């Protein structure tokens, strides 16, 4: 009887152990499977995030989620080192779920940031294209300092690079390059704009001179030089009777301030001498009375105010002469025509013929409405 009880109790305990072990084994099996599902899901989300460049557009969120995933893997490994029946995967699953949640947030944020970068880049690219077009149309023909031109070209090259990045869908890179390009291009653009705006502050005076010239032309021939249009006109009876292409001093924007500034003077002058043959090296020439009284007064005032050095000379020998047709502004301040055109204008002028030189006969707004200044120059 006693034996029977012993066998019965031992058998019961054995069966109980087997049942408990079986249940625990099943529980651990399910927990292991769930852990694998959680980690696999997190890993797939991370791969998806990588494909969407979350490491660029939501960098910190992505890296945080990646760290959490690695930590979950470490915890899983550590737990797997323990005896099968005492492993606890709850923390691993929780960490994997957090990693997945975070990486999904990173994907969402990356999408938003990428769209924002794309929009910002496209907006900036549009602004830059317009600035480049304006600069090339209105300001690039101005005599600009070398560093300003250099900035523009560097910016232009950077902008092309940014467009290439944009074409590849690398909008963050494209935007950052466009921003660098914008800084350079804007400096050149602002310089050119300011220079031209300052120049056109004299427009009222140019208009006044043109009115006077047109009135005077009813009684005699007048020569009118429009610097921006690179034109030399002959007025007769209030109308243009002849129009010639012209070339100017290399630093032609603005009035002439002193000898050697390579600028063409602006104002009202007259022909003082007609030169030809051995009298001039430029085929034929019409010498004008630069500096006139107004030029002298301004020169003295500039000298007194320290605008120009005390040792500066006012210069002279400004002519309308031949040798032109080089396609560039090359003189030291004279107005150059082709020899053929000099043959035409020379007999139309006498000593005493008024010569008006102005920056422009039309306002800046009118000029801008023309297709482009460059195109206008190219048509010549």
């Amino acid at each position, binding site marked *: 009887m006693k034996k029977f009880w012993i066998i019965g109790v031992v058998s019961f305990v054995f069966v109980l152990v087997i049942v408990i072990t079986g249940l625990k084994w099943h529980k651990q099996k399910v927990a292991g499977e769930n852990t694998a599902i959680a980690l696999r899901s997190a*890993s797939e989300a991370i791969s998806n995030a990588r*494909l969407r460049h979350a490491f660029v557009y939501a960098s910190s969120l992505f890296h945080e989620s990646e760290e959490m995933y690695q930590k979950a893997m470490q915890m899983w490994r550590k737990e*797997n080192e323990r005896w099968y029946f005492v492993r606890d995967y709850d923390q691993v699953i929780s960490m994997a779920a957090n990693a997945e949640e975070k990486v999904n947030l990173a994907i969402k944020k990356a999408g938003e940031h990428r769209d924002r970068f794309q929009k910002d880049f496209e907006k900036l690219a549009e602004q830059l294209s317009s600035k480049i077009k304006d600069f090339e149309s209105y300001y690039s023909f101005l005599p600009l300092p070398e560093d300003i*031109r250099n900035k523009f*070209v560097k910016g232009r090259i950077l902008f*092309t690079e940014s467009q290439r990045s944009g074409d590849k869908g690398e909008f963050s890179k494209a935007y950052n390059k466009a921003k660098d390009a914008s800084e350079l291009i804007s400096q050149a653009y602002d310089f050119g704009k300011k220079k031209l705006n300052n120049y056109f502050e004299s427009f009222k005076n140019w208009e006044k001179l043109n009115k006077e010239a047109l009135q005077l032309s009813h009684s005699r021939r007048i020569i009118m030089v429009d610097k921006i249009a690179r034109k030399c006109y002959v007025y007769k009876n209030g109308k243009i009777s002849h129009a010639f292409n012209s070339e100017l001093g290399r630093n032609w924007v603005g009035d002439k301030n002193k000898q050697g500034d390579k600028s063409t003077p602006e104002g009202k002058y007259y022909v003082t001498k007609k030169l030809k043959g051995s009298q001039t090296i430029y085929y034929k020439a019409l010498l004008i009375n630069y500096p006139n009284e107004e030029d002298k007064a301004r020169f003295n005032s500039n000298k007194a105010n320290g605008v120009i050095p005390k040792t500066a000379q006012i210069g002279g020998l400004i002519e309308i002469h031949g040798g032109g047709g080089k396609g560039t502004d090359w003189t030291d301040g004279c107005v150059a025509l082709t020899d053929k055109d000099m043959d035409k204008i020379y007999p139309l002028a006498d000593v005493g013929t008024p010569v008006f030189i102005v920056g422009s006969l039309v306002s800046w707004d009118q000029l801008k409405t023309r297709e482009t200044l460059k195109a206008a120059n190219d048509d010549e």
Partner: protein
Amino acid sequence: MKKSVFGLLTIAMVLVFSSCAKYPQVEVDAAKAAVEAAKAAGADVYLPEAFTGLLGSLDAATVMVEEQKSKFFSNYDEAKSKLSEVSAAAAQMVTDTEARKAELKEEALAAIESVKGLIAQNQELVEKAPKGKEGKAALEAIKADLAAVEAAVAEAASLVEGGNFIGAADKAKAANDKAVSINEELNAAIAKTKKR
């Protein structure tokens, strides 16, 4: 009786402690090292999409390994096979990356040569272009533009030396665009002078 109980317990213990197959640490380390080698070769830069796929495969394989480890009866055969695939793909990626790098390097060098050719051509055109009153070239503007293009080419060349072939190709191509526009500008100026 005692013997049979002892026998059953022994079998149970054997099952508990000796049922696991050997953890494929060597294969895991080899796959990780192969992926690192692909990254060191520049696969993440030159073949980004393929490299992202490779990282995903490595992650999937390591999950498979741990999944087996978490089982009472582990079987690493499938995981080992996946790890070998990852190692092989990573090794192939090193070769592919080198080939892509060589291709891009060639592209960058060709673009640099092309710009250099255009710069030389432009410098010749500058000589032919309208000259100034005092015999000096009156094309400072274009010369400044050319200097900026030359600087960009030098930058592209140094990027090639530094192994940044994508950046070098982009810069050289951008410089090439500008050199072409200068070339057109110069030719137009010369044609205009001839016309006159």
